[in-house]
C-alpha cells in the first residue's frame, strides 16, 4: 500500500469525525424540537480503484453503530415494558395501602382492638347496661370497618378492570398507527428515499406500545416492523390484528383474545400489571380479609354460645354464624336489639359472673389464626401493600437508571475506528467489574454497623 493511501484514510477519518461532531451539535440543539429527526453521520466505506486493484475496508463502523443502536433499542423497549409493569403495580398498591389506613382511628386493627377492649370493660362490670350498649356500638363499628375496607378493595378491583379494558383499546390504536407507518416507510424505501421521520416515529410508537404490553419486534429489510405480542404476530406489513378483552368478574379473570380467536398473554407492561393485580393480588387481599372475618366470627361465637345473658338461659351466638365474610359479617339480631342478651356469664342466672367476657377478651392475644393473633394478622395484611410498594419503587429507580444509560449510549456518536470502539467497550467492562467488586466487599461493613446500632 502506498503512503498516500494511508494518509488519505487517516485524513478521511478526521474529516468524518469533524462531521460527526457537527451532526451531534445539531442533534443536541434541536433535541426538544417537535418532530426533529435524530440524524447519524453516515460513515460508509470508501473504495479506491487503481489499475484493477480494489483497496477497501471490511465491515464499516456504520454497521457497528447500527448494531449498537438496534441492541440499545431492543433493550430500551424491554425496559419500557418492565417500567410500565412496575409503575402500574405501584399505583394500584398505593391505592390499596390507603384502603387499610392502619393505625389511625379508622384502621381495622384499631376497630378490632376497640371491640376486644369493650369486652374487657364489660368483664369488669357485666351487669352495666351502658357498657353493654357500648360493646354493641363498638362491634357495629368493627363490622362497618370490615365492610368498608372490603368495599374499597372491591372498588379498586373494578377500577383496575376498567383500566385494563381501556389499555387494550390503546394497544389496538397503536398497532393501527404502526401499520400506517409501515405503509409510509415501505413506500419511501421503494423510491430509494428513506423516510427517517416515519422511522423515528415508528420507534416512539414501539416504545409506547411496550410500556403497555410485552412487545417483541423485528425490523425487515424495507424498514417496516413485524410486531409480536405474547409470541403471536399482531402486525405484519399493513395488517394489524385487533385484540378484545373478556372479563369474568365473578372468577377474577381477564382474557385477551385476538380476532382469529386465539388467546393472548400480556406478559408485562401496564396491561400485564393490571391483569395480575386483578386476577391475583386483589383477590388475595380480599381472601385474607375474609379469613380474618371468618376466624373472628367463629372463635367469638364458639365461646359466646357457651355463655348466658342477663335475663334468660338461652345460649346465643354473638355474630350471625351464616355470615362469615368481610362484606357480610353482622351481629346476631337478638344481640343487636337487646344488649342484655350478650353472654358475659358462664352460668345462667349469675349476673355477676364474667367468665365468658374474660374468655372472649383473651382471644385478642391468642394465636388463633395462621399462628398469630387477629390483630397481628390484620397488621400484616395492612402492611402488605406498603411493603410491596417499597420494593417496586426500588426496582423502578434501578430500571430508570438502566434506561437512561441506554438512551445516553445512543446519543453518543461512535468514533471512526472499530478497534477504538471495541477497546473502549472493554475498558468500560473492566471498570464496571472493578466497581462491582469494591461494592460487594463493602456489604459486610454495612451489616456489621447496623448490628451494633
Amino acid at each position, binding site marked *: 500500500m502506498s503512503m498516500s493511501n494511508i494518509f488519505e484514510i487517516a485524513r478521511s477519518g478526521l474529516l468524518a469525525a469533524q462531521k460527526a461532531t457537527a451532526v451531534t451539535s445539531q442533534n443536541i440543539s434541536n433535541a426538544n424540537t417537535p418532530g426533529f429527526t435524530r440524524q447519524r453521520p453516515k460513515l460508509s466505506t470508501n473504495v479506491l480503484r487503481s489499475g484493477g486493484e480494489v483497496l477497501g475496508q471490511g465491515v464499516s463502523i456504520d454497521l457497528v453503530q447500527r448494531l449498537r443502536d438496534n441492541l440499545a433499542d431492543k433493550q430500551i423497549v424491554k425496559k419500557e415494558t418492565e417500567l410500565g409493569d412496575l409503575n402500574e403495580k405501584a399505583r394500584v398498591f398505593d391505592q390499596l395501602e390507603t384502603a387499610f389506613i392502619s393505625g389511625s382511628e379508622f384502621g381495622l386493627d384499631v376497630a378490632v382492638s376497640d371491640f376486644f377492649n369493650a369486652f374487657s370493660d364489660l368483664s369488669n362490670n357485666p351487669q352495666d347496661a351502658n357498657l353493654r350498649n357500648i360493646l354493641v356500638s363498638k362491634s357495629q363499628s368493627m363490622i362497618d370497618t370490615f365492610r368498608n375496607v372490603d368495599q374499597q378493595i372491591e372498588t379498586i378491583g373494578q377500577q383496575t378492570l376498567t383500566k385494563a379494558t381501556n389499555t387494550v383499546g390503546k394497544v389496538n390504536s397503536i398497532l393501527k398507527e404502526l401499520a400506517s407507518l409501515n405503509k409510509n416507510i415501505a413506500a419511501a424505501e421503494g423510491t430509494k428515499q428513506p423516510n427517517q421521520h416515519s422511522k423515528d416515529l415508528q420507534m416512539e410508537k414501539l416504545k409506547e406500545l411496550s410500556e403497555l404490553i410485552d412487545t417483541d419486534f423485528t425490523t425487515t429489510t424495507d424498514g417496516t416492523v413485524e410486531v409480536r405480542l405474547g409470541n403471536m404476530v399482531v402486525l405484519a406489513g399493513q395488517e394489524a390484528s385487533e385484540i378484545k378483552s373478556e372479563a369474568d368478574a365473578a372468577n377474577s379473570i381477564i382474557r385477551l383474545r385476538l380476532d382469529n380467536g386465539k388467546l393472548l398473554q400480556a406478559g408485562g407492561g401496564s396491561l400485564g400489571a393490571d391483569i395480575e393485580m386483578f386476577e391475583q393480588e386483589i383477590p388475595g387481599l380480599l381472601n385474607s380479609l375474609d379469613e380474618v372475618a371468618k376466624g373472628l366470627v367463629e372463635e367469638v361465637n364458639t365461646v359466646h354460645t357457651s355463655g348466658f345473658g342477663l335475663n334468660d338461659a338461652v345460649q346465643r351466638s354473638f355474630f350471625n354464624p351464616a355470615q362469615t365474610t368481610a362484606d357480610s359479617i353482622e351481629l346476631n339480631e337478638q344481640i343487636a336489639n337487646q344488649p342484655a342478651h350478650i353472654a358475659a356469664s358462664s352460668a345462667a342466672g349469675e349476673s355477676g359472673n364474667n367468665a365468658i367476657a374474660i374468655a372472649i377478651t383473651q382471644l385478642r392475644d391468642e394465636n388463633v389464626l395462621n399462628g398469630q393473633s387477629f390483630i397481628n394478622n390484620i397488621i400484616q395484611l395492612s402492611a402488605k401493600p406498603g411493603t410491596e410498594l417499597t420494593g417496586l419503587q426500588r426496582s423502578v429507580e434501578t430500571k430508570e437508571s438502566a434506561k437512561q444509560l441506554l438512551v*445516553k449510549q445512543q446519543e453518543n456518536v461512535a468514533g471512526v475506528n472499530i478497534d477504538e470502539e*471495541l477497546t473502549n467497550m472493554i475498558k468500560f467492562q473492566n471498570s*464496571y467489574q472493578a466497581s462491582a467488586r469494591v461494592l460487594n466487599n463493602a456489604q459486610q461493613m454495612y451489616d456489621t454497623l447496623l448490628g451494633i446500632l
Partner: protein
Amino acid sequence: MDESLRSRNKINQLSMNMEHLIEEYEEAHQLLSDQIEAVIYNDLTRLNKLIEQQLTKYDNLEGLENDFKQKIESIFDDLFPGETTHTITHMLKKLDQPADKLEILRERLHKQVMMTQKMRRQLVDLLEFAREHNKETLLSIYNLGQKDSERYTNTGKRKSAELTSVSINKKA
C-alpha cells in the same frame, strides 16, 4: 479519675465518633450517587476516579467502625459488665442519665446507613445491567466478523465478513 467522669468521657467520645461516621456515610452516599451518574453518562474517566475515591472512603469507614465498636465494648465493660448484648439500643435502655443526644445520633446514623445501602444496591444493579449489555454488544460485534456469520446485499450477493479497520490490498 472518677469512674462516672471517665464513663461520661467515653460516652462523649462515642458521640463524636458517631457524628464522624454520619459525615463519612453522607459522603459515601454522594460517591455512590456520582458513580451512578458516571455509568449513565458513560464517563469512564470520572468512573475510574470515583472507584478510587470509594476504596479510600471504605478504608476510612472501616477504621471508624472498628473504633466505634471498641468504644461500645469499653463502655459496656465499665458500666454494665456481664451484659452480652452490646448495642447502642441496649445501652440507651440501661443508661441512668438522659441520653437524648445519643438517641438522636443513633437514629441519624441508622437512617444514613440505610440510605447508603439503598444507593449501593441501586448501583450494583445498574452495573450488572451495564456489564451484561456491554458483553452482549461485544459478542454481537465479534460475530459480525466471523466467517460463519453470513450477510447478503439486497441484490443477493454475499458481503465480506472481515472486521478490520486496516486497508487490505486484496489483489496481493
